[in-house]
């Protein structure tokens, strides 16, 4: 859920920038490390970023809630595939491109958007995925809930960000109002997106399990089962 250019007051723009920069910098250091050890990962990361961009600009079929500018973030899937830190950096670049190529989101609100979509979203998605996998449930179920919680937490974060910026009459009431609106529009979207991600995941699993294995998404036993 992109917050539009200039929607937030200046101090909040700064605040979110300050909060995201350390995380992004940490991600950059990680990526630098990865690409120095495996130079071939550089183009792979870049094309994966392009994939996230495309996936984020595809509209979900049929359930377009009037007034909502939402569509799959693609970032949940990225988080499961590449881990949250790498995804955070890729998502940040994607958000810049979305601002400059599609006029989605913005530059002043970039910090806030990275925080919700590039940090909170991927981390929740990834944590959910790992937790569910540990309990021994199937990876498709894990993907479903990872995508769903990733989305929901992104929206909740956005609601918080808006309520901080416009605490009228007070923070709690404003938060309640924003979450109320999001609950109606975004829960169905999140479910739809989660279903879509399961289909995507299962498709990749059927066609090229070796890629998922390489990314350490699925264990060797699962690969044997498929082959």
């Amino acid at each position, binding site marked *: 859920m992109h917050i*539009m*250019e*200039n*929607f*937030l007051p*200046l101090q909040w*723009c700064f605040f979110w920038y300050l909060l995201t920069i350390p995380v992004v910098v940490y991600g*950059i250091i990680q*990526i*630098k490390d990865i*690409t*120095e050890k495996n*130079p*071939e990962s*550089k*183009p*792979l990361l*870049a*094309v*994966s*970023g*392009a*994939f996230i961009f*495309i*996936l984020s*600009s*595809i509209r*979900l*079929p*049929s359930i377009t809630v009037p*007034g909502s*500018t939402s569509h799959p973030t693609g970032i949940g899937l990225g988080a499961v595939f590449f881990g949250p830190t790498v995804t955070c*950096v890729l998502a940040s*670049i*994607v958000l*810049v*491109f979305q*601002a*400059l*190529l*599609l*006029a989605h989101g*913005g*530059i*002043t609100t970039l910090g806030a958007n990275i925080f919700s979509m590039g940090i909170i979203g991927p981390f929740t998605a990834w944590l959910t995925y790992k937790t569910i996998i540990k309990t021994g449930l199937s990876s498709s179920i894990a993907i479903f809930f990872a995508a769903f919680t990733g989305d929901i937490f992104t929206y909740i974060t956005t609601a918080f960000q808006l309520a901080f910026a*416009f605490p*009228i*009459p007070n923070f709690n009431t404003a938060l309640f109002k924003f979450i109320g609106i999001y609950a109606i529009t975004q829960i169905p979207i999140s479910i739809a997106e989660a*279903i*879509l991600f*399961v*289909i*995507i*995941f*299962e*498709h*990749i699993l059927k*066609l*090229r399990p070796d*890629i998922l294995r390489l990314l350490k998404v699925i264990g060797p036993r699962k690969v044997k089962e498929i082959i």
Partner: protein
Amino acid sequence: MGRTIDDYAYSNGLKNTNSLFKVLFALLTMLICVISTSPIIPFIIIFFIMFLIIFKAKIPYKFYLKFLSVPLFFGILTFLFMTLFFGMMEPWFKINLINIIIYKDGFNLGILVFTRILGGFSCLGFLALTTPMTEIFSLLERFKIPLIILEIAMIMYRYIFVFLEETTNMYQSQKTRLGYQSIKGSFQSLGILAGNLFIRTWIRGEQIYISMESRCYNGSIKSFKTQNSISTKNIVLLISFEFLIIIGTYLTANYKIL
């Protein structure tokens, strides 16, 4: 989708204007919009930029108006939302029928946020429509963005368009075979499309590496760019413009419509 904005960026009337100048202009003006406490200056900026885009950059006005329709819609929604829910100080009038009180402060905030969004969006639009992405890469490099980010961003930019085309082809061939007919079918088709796209991106990534290696790639993409600097005339122009609107912001700081 995306393609058109990018196309205009390479072929507009201001494409040869120094890109640092355009970026500074867009960003500073955007910041002034965001700090403005009255709707006057953002309002002026919206029209000033509209003038620049239609008459200087020669972007067809039809396209620009369509481009503005999204934030306009969103802005009006926000305006209504704030007017209806965010007021409390001075009741302005009351709609008895649905029992809603409109407050003056809510209305004022609504208008302010509305003009700020549209002003900011205009600045973003100016940047997006007049400055090619490739120019922005050179600027980012000059500002010492970590190289690895720039490298990934450059390759990503290039392949966004390659994949966009391939996605369109896949989508069209699915439609030919009656995909996307029902809701269930749409999910199935879209999931398969995205899954395939991912596999393709992966194969592409490996292929690009092979072709880069063939050209003596050794881990870092050394940049090759030519830089040009802003003319003094433009600097003066920029400073005086921004100065003018800052003063405007200061003078109109306490102005409220109601």
